[in-house]
């Protein structure tokens, strides 16, 4: 008589948390549709959605590219490159995003403009600090901050590939570059994608910090709207709803992706 576990019932397998989230979302939408006050707040904040997505999207793409370069430097054979990249990651990871935003906006940006002007001087070109607006400074700051975290994700992914695979590639006479492209990268990608997605979700939330520079994102528009109507509680309800809609749907997408990656492996 062998013991056979009974398959769990359909009720036990239902993701109740997901159901609760969907209900919450529907309730929020219904409130925004039917309640005049919430409707007005939503309209006032909707302009910030594009700004938030644009800042996050551009910064994340740039941070991923920069993070990959740093990760390659951290795993390269060249000692100087390794040391430099490690120094970069340790320093950047240790600074709060908000502090870094101010730093880039008021130390980095003027210095960059001055440097560019010095370079352009022979060609008669001159740029002013005004041509480098706050939204771009915020994007640069988020890019640099997140590139350090993303570099670590890439490094973990690269180092997780079995050493034997690399040795086999060498034995087959693949060059260093071929080995990375054909053997390491495809396998590392599976390890890398889920945490990379999680970083994207946290960047959506951290992008709220750009309101400190006055960039007109969801958070700043919420601040402005609530200060002129004195409706703080209601306004921040809508702010939270908008961020949740973005972050939860992204998280669900990442889960799907993980699911398919796991299926491929079998």
């Amino acid at each position, binding site marked *: 008589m062998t013991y056979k576990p009974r398959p769990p019932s359909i009720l036990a397998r239902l993701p109740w948390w997901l159901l609760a989230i969907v209900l919450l979302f529907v309730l929020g939408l219904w409130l925004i549709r039917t309640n005049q006050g919430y409707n007005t707040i939503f309209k006032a904040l909707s302009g910030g959605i594009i700004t938030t997505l644009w800042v996050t999207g551009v910064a994340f793409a740039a941070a991923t590219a920069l993070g990959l370069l740093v990760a390659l430097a951290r795993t390269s054979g060249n000692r100087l490159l390794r040391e430099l990249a490690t120094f970069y990651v340790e320093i950047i990871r240790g600074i709060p995003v908000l502090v870094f935003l101010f730093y880039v906006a008021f130390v980095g940006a003027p210095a960059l403009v001055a440097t560019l002007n010095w370079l352009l001087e022979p060609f008669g070109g001159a740029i002013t600090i005004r041509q480098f607006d706050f939204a771009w400074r915020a994007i640069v700051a988020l890019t640099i901050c997140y590139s350090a975290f993303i570099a670590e994700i890439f490094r973990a992914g690269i180092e997780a590939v079995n050493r034997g695979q690399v040795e086999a590639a060498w034995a087959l006479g693949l060059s260093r570059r071929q080995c990375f492209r054909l053997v390491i990268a495809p396998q590392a990608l599976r390890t890398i994608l889920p945490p990379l997605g999680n970083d994207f979700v946290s960047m959506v939330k951290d992008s709220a910090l750009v309101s400190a*520079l006055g960039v007109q994102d969801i958070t700043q528009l919420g601040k*402005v*709207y609530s200060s002129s109507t004195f409706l703080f509680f209601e306004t921040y309800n809508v702010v939270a709803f908008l961020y949740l809609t973005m972050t939860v749907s992204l998280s669900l997408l990442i889960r799907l992706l993980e699911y398919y990656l796991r299926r491929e492996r079998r």
Partner: protein
Amino acid sequence: MSSLLKLLATAAASLAFGAVTVQAQDALPDLDGRTIVAVTENAYVPLNFVDPKTGEGVGLEYDLFNEIAKRLNAKVDWQLSSWDVMIQAVRDGQFEVGMDGITINEERAELIDFSDPYLTSEQYMLVRADEARFTDAEGFAADPDLLIGAQAGTTNFYVAVYNVLDGEETNPRIKLFDTFGTSVSALQAGDVDTVLMDQTSANGYIGANPGAFKVIGGPLGAEDFGFILTQGSDLLDPINAAIAAIKADGTMDKLQQKWFYEYNAAQ
């Protein structure tokens, strides 16, 4: 030698003319249609804020500065930044003129140039509706258990320090918050016992939260608001001349009447 004489003669002539133009109305400098880059935050009722109905930036400072530009034959390119970074950004020359109910003081004057004052702020004590422990600033100051909420380096902070408490900026009875909204939320929650604000904001909070707040005592404080300009700006003298003209012909009084008494923030 003759050139020096000529120079002296023209200098004397321009001085004489200068003395004349100050007295004359409508003889303001002409900026020739130039565009002034001005910045504000839209988070300070009734000086600069977003009209909930239209989504447009409105307020006393908008009206006032547009009027100044009109009289100087200039256009205004309105920009937005947050209060946290406004002084620094004007100092860097990113914006030419900034306004956000900015109190004129010496520390700031080392970083940027102030225009002449265009408004003297009057602050009132907003308290919870059931407050019975004190009825004015003296009563508040006398009880060491009572706390006041303010934003670091803002008008209500300076008035709290110098007009309500003992002039000590590090007084532990002042609790600092990031925005007006947070300090009022803290008042409502009972973390602090009063927050200072102008009449319009006080009316706005009272109207938006029926039965939650009231105003006690008379007006406090004598903080002057000025426009901030990048140091050495050539706009300083024209703007000051325009402010003087606007005050002289009664336009300033009309603007104050409109935004401090007629405008109802909590509609």
